[in-house]
């Protein structure tokens, strides 16, 4: 009967119910989108790193897992690494930012093709000249450009010589030498990839390199890609925690206002319930169940909206932001929304439960 009463209350004021559900859904969407973006972009980075086809990555001293904004390694290191036992291929790349989360990568295309098996072109083909650029499908779509077209970047025009399937190292690829010259990093590299003769020798080679290159982070690609996760990025983890707290606060505020208004609107109904012998806990339960149902519906709405935000990103900025759908976060986001909702409903619920029945019945 309590559930029926709660459902009828929710049905009786559809605008207030719909608005509350939508507003509770917003922080749920925020959380799911944020977590989805973190995981989606990291997974995309890992997928592209695997697409290189290397067995080992050598990174400059002092770099984090995902930041490579400088090119501090000498290109001469490549020859030294090529000479290492079991190393069959070595290639260096240079990374340079062009926008907030967009990087260009310079590669030696011949070496890179040998290691990765080459780009799979959807249109056009490899570099024909020093001012050519290869784009992946997502970035080309985002910029609205096709093979043979031009794009502006780094204060100059580039000819798009090819559009390739995504998943290989980078979204924007330039000739290594061009990028080095353009950024004043001639002879410098951001990262070196190695291929060894047998997977069984990967650890041997890493051990040998670590002994020679003190301070250089050296990973097997398997280890490297597995480390690209939210848990290994403390700044991101903190950001998600902050967003979680913000979500609880928004959920609290929305439900507090919604239930406070509802309790005021229903003063007379509460008086009727009390005249019938409803105890304080009975009235409290009605308000709390209503808040829980609103937050449950808000959680579902938030999940639905997170699909909407993903669709929007895929449509508008597929190369810049990759949002994953993370179902394991649905119950977490729902629980957080419900926590905010219950906290927000407590005061209105207690004030409803404590209402004087005579005053409540006299309320117009």
């Amino acid at each position, binding site marked *: *009967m*309590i559930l*029926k*009463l709660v459902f*009828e*209350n929710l*049905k*009786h004021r559809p605008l207030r119910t719909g608005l509350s559900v939508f507003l509770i859904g917003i922080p749920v969407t925020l959380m799911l989108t944020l977590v989805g973006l973190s995981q989606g972009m990291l997974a995309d980075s890992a997928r592209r790193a695997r697409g290189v086809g290397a067995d080992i990555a050598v990174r400059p001293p002092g770099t984090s897992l995902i930041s490579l904004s400088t090119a501090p390694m000498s290109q001469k290191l490549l020859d030294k690494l090529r000479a290492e036992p079991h190393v069959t291929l070595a290639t260096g790349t240079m990374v340079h930012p062009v926008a907030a989360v967009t990087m260009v990568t310079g590669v030696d295309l011949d070496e890179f093709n040998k290691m990765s098996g080459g780009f799979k072109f959807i249109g056009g083909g490899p570099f024909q000249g020093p001012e050519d650029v290869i784009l992946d499908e997502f970035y080309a779509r985002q910029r609205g450009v096709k093979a043979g077209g031009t794009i502006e970047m780094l204060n100059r025009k580039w000819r798009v010589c090819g559009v390739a399937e995504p998943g290989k190292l980078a979204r924007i690829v330039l000739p290594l030498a061009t990028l080095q010259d353009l950024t004043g990093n001639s002879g410098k590299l951001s990262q070196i990839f190695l291929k060894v003769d047998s997977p069984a020798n990967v650890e041997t080679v890493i051990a040998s390199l670590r002994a020679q290159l003190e301070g250089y982070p050296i990973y097997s690609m398997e280890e490297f890609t597995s480390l690209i996760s939210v848990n290994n990025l403390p700044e991101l983890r903190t950001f998600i925690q902050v967003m979680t707290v913000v979500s609880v606060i928004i959920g609290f505020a929305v439900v507090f206002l919604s239930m406070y208004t509802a309790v005021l609107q229903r003063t*007379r*109904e509460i*008086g*009727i*319930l*009390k*005249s*019938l*012998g*409803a*105890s*304080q806990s*009975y009235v409290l339960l009605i308000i709390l169940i209503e808040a829980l149902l609103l937050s449950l519906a808000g959680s579902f709405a938030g999940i639905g909206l997170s699909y909407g935000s993903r669709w929007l990103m895929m449509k508008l900025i597929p190369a810049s932001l990759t949002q994953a759908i993370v179902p394991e976060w649905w119950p977490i986001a729902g629980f957080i929304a419900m926590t905010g909702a219950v906290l927000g409903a407590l005061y209105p619920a207690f004030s409803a439960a404590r209402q*004087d*029945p*005579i005053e409540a*019945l006299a309320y117009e």
Partner: protein
Amino acid sequence: MSKSSGSIIEIQGLRKVFRVGKVDVEALRGIDLDVEPGEFLAIVGPSGSGKSTLFHIIGGLTPPTAGAVRVANQDLTALGDAGRTRLRKTTVGFVFQKFNLLPILTAGDNIALARHIGGNRDGESDRFREVLELLGISERLKHKPSELSGGEQQRVAIARGIVNHPAILLADEPTGNLDSQNSQTVLALLRDLNERMGQTILMITHNPEAAAYAHRIVNMRDGRIVS
């Protein structure tokens, strides 16, 4: 008055004082009243006579300030908030002037809610179905209050008031919002409930015609019973 008199309502020296700002307002100034089981009593008086305050105290909606009040063998002066809630749940039923049905529920659900709050989880008894027939609302139970006439709403409120078989039905100006024809119907129904089912009824009214349906009339003025 003896406590073993068998009265269902026993009141002695009842006083009620309200604090309004910094002023004490004495609403009841020493009420003595006995009501026998099965009695239909009307309390009549002008506005401010204290009849509503008496109604609220007997119904467990507010505590007395002083005096002795026993309702169905429960000492109301000793009851706290939870005790008065229990009294409303099990011992008294209310019928109000403004019907006070929940607008979001159907007539049937309004009655079912009262039964649920009263802890009665069984289906309707034969006796209650008989009451619904008597009240003439069996066919109107699926309708919401806004779809019912005033008379029908008040009959639903009466059904709700007696669904948990209370010892006393308290009616506060039950015809105050009804036209004369519906007033007569509702009053006749209250008398039928009293005569056929032995339901004790205490009715507050300022209307002498309505009071005439009762077995006994008590007149109040300025917080006292005057006759």
